[in-house]
């Protein structure tokens, strides 16, 4: 968090005079399970993008079509909704066939 300002240095009335300042706030630290994108299984249906409550799915328009590029882990809280709505991910598929796999965050600690 940025250094706290004094009363003379902030706008009056509690107004936040700039949009989207929350983008500075890292919600990714909340995450205990990490979704991992396996592009080889992805059909780029955009369901993960549509439903991600934290808008942490990175997409890119290639040849006029949106493509899933992976996660913005700065924001991803690890809810797993992306995997739940993914048509290429379910409990009956072996992990290597899924487009999204959920892995404990501990696996990614240094």
């Amino acid at each position, binding site marked *: 968090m940025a250094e706290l300002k004094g*009363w003379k240095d902030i706008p009056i*009335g509690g107004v*936040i005079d700039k949009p989207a300042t929350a983008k500075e706030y890292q919600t990714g630290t909340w995450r205990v399970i990490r979704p991992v994108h396996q592009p080889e299984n992805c059909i780029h249906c955009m369901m993960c993008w549509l439903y991600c409550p934290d808008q942490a799915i990175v997409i890119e328009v290639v040849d006029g079509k949106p493509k899933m590029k992976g996660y913005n882990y700065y924001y991803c809280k690890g809810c797993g909704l992306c995997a739940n709505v993914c048509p290429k991910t379910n409990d009956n598929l072996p992990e290597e066939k899924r487009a999204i796999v959920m892995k404990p965050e501990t696996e990614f600690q240094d």
Partner: protein
Amino acid sequence: MPEVKNRQAVTGAQAIANAMRQINPDVVAAYPITPQTPVVEYFAQFVADGAVETEMIPVESEHSAMSAVVGAAAAGARAMTATAANGLALMHEIVYIAASSRLPIVMAVANRALSGPINIHCDHSDAMAERDSGWIQLWAENAQEAYDFTLMAIRIAEHEDVRLPVMVNFDGFIISHGVEVVDFLDDEVARKFVGEPKVMYPLLDTEHPVTHGPLDLYDYYFEHKRQQIEAMKHVKKVFKEVAEEFAKISGRKYDLLDKYKVDDAEYIMIALGSTAGTIKYTVDLLREEGHKVGVIKPQIFRPFPKNELQELLNGRKGVIVLDRAASFGAEAPLYEAVKSALYEVAVKPQIGSYVYGLGGRDIKIEHIRKAFEDAFSGNLIADEERYLGLRE
């Protein structure tokens, strides 16, 4: 002295509605409540007749009236409303939010007793319940002041050093429904005086999106309150500037305190609103009899003109404070403030507290005389609250 071109006999409600017509606010949201209702009715007629360009929102409650003007003011509109008593109480929550959000809303309040039992007549319990809400409170003695203060309120509220809402208090029925002589400014003169609205952080500037009313926890809430405290400190200076400008166009000069025959006065009575006039008359009578008496009417109660009162009251023989509201379990609000101010003066006068006129009970010359006579005989007791016009 500017020439009086438009002198009329009107009610206080008409006077205020006419000020609102001249202000031509962008948005008025209001709900009728006795004795404020005629203000809304007259103004609604102006809207219906196209005398103003105002968009009027006939809301379903005072709570929504204040909520809507908060929305409108935040959006970037000049917004006004009016209410009284229970209506003001219903607004209470949003009254605070309006001030905290630093929205320069102007609201006329036809002061009326706050229930219960229900009573529709004048006292100051409604406005006094909002005295710590962060609103500037102006108090009119008569229809003329109600008109003048409504115009001045816009300028004070929108001043960049202030940015606070203003409540223009005028006694319910006595001023709201009583017909008195009012000198109106020419429309053009009044319009030029209030000027174009000055907006800050308008919601409708969609190119620069702002967030109004965030969750403000212990990191910053205190800082925002400190800003509000600071803004109130600027009000007196701004009031004087605005009053000076207003005097030039109207010939009517207002100060934070309205002083009547106080220069050589040994005994000074202090009261808000229409009763101050009756006291002035009583002062004239008592001066005939050789008593050195005067009256001070604070034109503004929030911020409280403490220093100005200290200067005036230091060394007087007696100070009598009349309150048209009780503070149950504590001293009456105006008295409490005056008494507290006197803590710091070098030569403290005797001081006495008189509560009068609750629920519209008439306050008569003989009541006022009685309180003065207590002072003359040295019978003022700082810790005793007395009642005028009450049956024992």
